[in-house]
C-alpha cells in the first residue's frame, strides 16, 4: 500500500491526484488549513477505497512544519510519495503596488515550499526511499510582467528542486519537478478555452505517471516543454518588449 503525504491537499490538482491514488488503494495523509474541507475530501477518498488521515498545517508557519511532518510520518509509517501542492495565485497588480504583497506572495509560493522541500528531502534521504513531488509552474521558467512575483517564487522552487535532486542522488530518494500550464477548473469554466487548457484530472494523471516512472521534470501537458524551450531562447532585447 503506497504511503502518500499531500500538502495543500484542498487544491483541485491535489484532490484529483489523491483520487487516482485512492483508486489504487493508497494510504494517504492530507495536510491543509481547512479541517472541514480536508474531511470532505478524505471521506470521498475513503469511500473509494483509500485509508486516509488528515492534519492541519499552515505552510507559512515554518515552526509548525517539523511537528506536522513527524505526525505524518508516524501516521503513514514512512513516506513513499510526498506531493507539495499548496500555493496561491497572487494579484500581480497589487504586488506591483505593495512590497509587502510581493513578500507575502513569495512566502506563500516560494519560501514555505522550499522549507518543506528541505525538511522532506532530509527525511526521505534518511529513509533511503521515496519521491518528493513538488508542483512548480511553467511560470517559473521565465519572468513576465503579468505574474512576476508568482513566477519568481516558482523559479525558486524549480531551482531548489533541481538542487535537491542532485543532493539526493545515491540516497534512494528522488525529486520530481511538476510544471503545469493552464488548467481548466470549475472556477475558470466561464472562460473560453483554447486547446492549450488542460483539466485537473489530466494534470493529476500526468503527475501520477511521472512519479511511477521516476521522472525528474515533467511539463503538463507535455507540449509546454517545447513551448517553454522556445520562450527561454527569446533574446531579452525582444522579450522585454513582449506583453503576455
Amino acid at each position, binding site marked *: 500500500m503506497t504511503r502518500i503525504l499531500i*500538502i495543500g*491537499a*484542498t*487544491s*483541485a*490538482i*491535489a484532490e484529483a491526484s489523491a483520487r487516482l491514488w485512492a483508486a489504487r488503494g493508497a494510504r494517504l495523509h492530507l*495536510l491543509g*488549513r481547512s479541517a*472541514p*474541507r480536508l474531511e*470532505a475530501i478524505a*471521506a*470521498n477518498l475513503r*469511500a*473509494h477505497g483509500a485509508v486516509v488521515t488528515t492534519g492541519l498545517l*499552515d*505552510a507559512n508557519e515554518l515552526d509548525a512544519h517539523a511537528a506536522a511532518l513527524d505526525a505524518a510520518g508516524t501516521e503513514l509509517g514512512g513516506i513513499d510519495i510526498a506531493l507539495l501542492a*499548496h*500555493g*496561491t*495565485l*497572487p*494579484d*500581480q*497588480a*497589487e504586488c506591483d503596488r505593495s512590497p509587502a504583497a510581493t513578500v*507575502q506572495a513569495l*512566502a*506563500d509560493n516560494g519560501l*514555505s515550499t522550499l522549507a518543506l522541500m528541505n525538511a522532506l528531502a532530509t527525511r526521505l534521504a534518511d529513509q533511503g526511499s521515496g519521491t518528493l513531488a513538488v*508542483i512548480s*509552474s*511553467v511560470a517559473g521558467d521565465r519572468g513576465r510582467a*503579468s*505574474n512576476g512575483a508568482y513566477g519568481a517564487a*516558482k523559479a525558486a522552487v524549480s531551482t531548489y528542486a533541481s538542487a535537491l535532486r542532485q543532493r539526493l542522488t545515491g540516497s534512494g530518494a528522488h525529486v520530481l519537478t511538476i510544471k*503545469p*500550464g*493552464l*488548467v481548466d*477548473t*470549475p*472556477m*475558470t*469554466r*466561464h*472562460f*473560453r*478555452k*483554447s486547446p*492549450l487548457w488542460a483539466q*485537473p484530472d489530466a*494534470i493529476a494523471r500526468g503527475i501520477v505517471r511521472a512519479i511511477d516512472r521516476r521522472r525528474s521534470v515533467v511539463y503538463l501537458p507535455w507540449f*509546454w516543454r517545447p*513551448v*517553454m524551450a522556445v*520562450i527561454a531562447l527569446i533574446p531579452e532585447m525582444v522579450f522585454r518588449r513582449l*506583453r*503576455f
Partner: protein
Amino acid sequence: MSHAGPGTGPQGADRPDDVAPGGDPLPVSTHASKAGSTPATTGNTASATPPALPSWGNHPQAAPARVQALHWRDEPLPTPASAAPMLARGNGRSYGDVGLNHGGTVLLTRGLDRVIAFDCQRGILRCEAGILLDRLLELTVPQGWLLPVLPGTAQVTVGGAIGNDIHGKNHHQAGSFGCHVRAFELLRSDGTRLECSPDHHAELFAASIGGLGLTGLITWVELQLVPVPGPWLLATDTRFTGWDAFHELSRAHAAAQYTVAWLDALVPSGQPWRGVFSHGDFAALDDGPAPPKARAGVPFTPPLCLPRAGAVRVLNGQRWRRARTDPAPVHYRRFFFPLDAIGHWNRLYGRRGFVQHQCVLPPQVAIDSLVQIQATIAASGQPPLLAVAKTFGPLASPGLLSFPRPGTTLALDFPFRGEPTVALLAHLDAIVAEAGGAVYPAKDAHLSGAHFRQFFPAWQRFCPLVDPAFSSSFWRRVMADAKPPP
C-alpha cells in the same frame, strides 16, 4: 485576495494551482490571457464575460449575467450583486430552459462531486449534489448496489436528478427518482441550511423534488440504493406496429424490471409507427459483455442540422432489423445509456439546436391521443428523428411538481426549425391538455404558462416555497402571466 491565503489550502484565493499554475504564459488568445490573470482577483467570484452555457437542446439561447463555480458544500451562496436571481446548474443535460437563467447568476455545481458516506451494508449513499450518476455507478455497482432510478444518460448530476424528479425504464415498478431520496440539505438564500426529508421540512422536501432548482441550492443528497446481482441484464426485444400493440406489450411485460419502447416515426405517411419494445431484468451472470467503449464525441456544433430524414430512416431500418428477439445478456450501461457512447450527440442538430417534446397521457385516453399526436405530426411534415415511449406506473412521487403520473409517456426529438416547430409544439401541447396529461418541463422550451399551470396544479402550493432569490428562464416564462396564488 491572494494574500489572505498563506499556507496550505488557501481559502481566500482558493485552489490557485488548479486555476492557472503558470499564470498566462503565452498570448494564446485574449481569453486565455484574461483567464490567467482574472482568477488572481476572483477567488470564487464571477467573470465579467460569462459564456453562453447552452442547454442540451441548444435552444433557446440565454446569457447569464454571472457564473459562479461552487467547490465546497460549506461555501455560502454568493451575495447577490443586484436583484438578479440565482439558479444552480449541474451538467447541463436539461433540454430546454429549466437550467437557463438569462440575465441572472448561474451556480455551477459540478465541483460538488464528493461522496460523503456509503453504507454498503444497507445501500445508503450520501454524496454532494454535483456528482454525476456515472461516477456513483462506478462506485456502487461493483459493490452490488444500483441507483434506484436510471435515466437515459448517466451524465446528469444527483442534484439535477432531484430537481427534475427524473424517471427511468423501471417507473412502472419503482416510481421516480424522488421516491428514493431519503434526505438532502437545502441551502436557502437567507443563509439557512435545512436538512429536508419526508419528516423534516417536509414541505420543502416535496417542493424541491421536481422543483426545478427553484427552492434553493441542494448541497448534498442521501439516497436509498437497490441491490443488484451484477452489471448485466437479460434483455429481450419485441418488434411491434401501432399503439395497441405497444400497450399490449407493456401489459404483458409489466412484471419485467425495466421496459421501454423505441419508435420509428419515419414510416411512410398514413402508416402507424412501428417500434421495438425492450424489456430486461438484472440477472446473476458469471460473465457477460463488456461495457460499451466511449466512442469519439462530436467535437463541435456544425452550422446545420446533420441528421437528414433519409439517413435516419436507414438507421431506423437497421435498428428494427437488429432487434434481439431472444433473451440476451447486455451490460447495464449499454441497456440504459446507449447514447452516452457518442459524446455530445446533441451537437449533430446544428446551431439551431433541437427540442424534445415529452408528454404523459392518462391511460383511458392514451391511445386516442397518441393517434392524434401522430396525425398532427404527419400533417406538419416534421417527423421526430427520435421517439421513445414507456408506460408509467401508479407509484406517486413526493414531489409537488413531479412530472411522471400513470399513463403513457412519449418523448419526441425535433430539429428546431423556427416557427413551424413552435406551431407543432403548441398543437401537441393542446392535445396533451385536452387529454388531461402533462408535458415534462426538463425537456421543454415552449410550453405556455396556462398549460404549465394546468399540467402542474400544485403550482399554487409550490409558489410560496420558492426561494425569493432563485429563478430560471423557464420559471419566468411560465409564470409571467400567472396571478399570484391566493
